[in-house]
């Protein structure tokens, strides 16, 4: 995902030509939406924040300085900050649309399918309780299909640090899931139920 000369030229052009910014928008809107979606957990907030990311990018592109990083790194950083601000401002309670995140309605399904859905629902819930940085890592790795080196570029860390953080994150997730099973699924409830975010922010 290293920055290409073509992209550098496009960014330069986008500073004075709205058409060029439109090209950048087309190129990245789906990626940013996916990232924001998994951080927010519902379509409505994901659309709202995606729009804000591109509006902010548009107003600040004059001040964008090429540091050899891909343009997407800058967009992800804007998205990350906006999502963090959103959660800070709405920290009392948040609605988690888990069914929406699963991409299908929970209804009458064969037993195995229902179990899979349940597992994924629990996993996504556990993911959203991780510190922000770890959520970002997992979303970039799996939803955006980026390598550790590319994630490092975006998050301002070395590839080794990302690898280490990834393993620690998997262990935390595994422990959370084991705890969930041992407690006998205490938090499962209706769709879109309200949960208290733990607010762990450090890694």
């Amino acid at each position, binding site marked *: 995902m290293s920055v290409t000369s073509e992209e550098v030229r496009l960014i330069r052009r986008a500073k004075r030509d709205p058409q060029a910014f439109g090209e950048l928008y087309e190129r990245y809107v789906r990626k940013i939406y996916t990232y924001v979606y998994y951080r927010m957990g519902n379509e409505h907030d994901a659309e709202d924040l995606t729009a804000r990311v*591109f509006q902010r990018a548009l107003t600040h592109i004059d001040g964008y300085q090429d540091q050899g990083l891909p343009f997407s790194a800058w967009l992800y950083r804007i998205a990350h900050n906006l999502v963090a601000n959103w959660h800070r401002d709405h920290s009392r309670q948040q609605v988690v649309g888990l069914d929406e995140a699963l991409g299908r309605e929970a209804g009458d399904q064969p037993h195995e399918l229902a179990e899979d859905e349940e597992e*994924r629902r629990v996993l996504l819930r556990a993911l959203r309780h991780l510190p922000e940085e770890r959520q970002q890592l997992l979303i970039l790795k799996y939803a955006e299909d980026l390598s550790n080196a590319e994630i490092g570029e975006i998050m301002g860390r070395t590839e080794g640090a990302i690898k280490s953080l990834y393993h620690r994150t998997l262990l935390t997730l595994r422990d959370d899931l084991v705890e969930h099973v041992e407690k006998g699924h205490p938090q499962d409830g209706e769709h879109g139920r309200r949960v208290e975010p733990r607010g762990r922010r450090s890694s």
Partner: protein
Amino acid sequence: MKQIRYQEARLARLLQNSLAPRHPRPEFVHSLREKLAHLTSMPVLIEQPRHLARSVGLGILGLIGVIASAFAAALVALRFLGWVLKSLKLAPQDRPSPNVPQKPS
């Protein structure tokens, strides 16, 4: 150790399946594109109303300051000019009023 590796691999697979790329609604993509195009046509007026208002306010204050300074400077200059002319006796002197003979009562 083997079991931990197995669990990690299973978790990774589960993450892979759960975090599929999402596709925004086409209407949303379209409407945001239009909104951005509209913003680029007059970014200052729409995106930075506060900055604009502040700049205009400061401009007006500055203008008032400049006019007031110029007026004060002009007053001082006129007074100075009057004093110089008076010193050089070039200024019109006050003449005594001519004596008008009084009529006898």
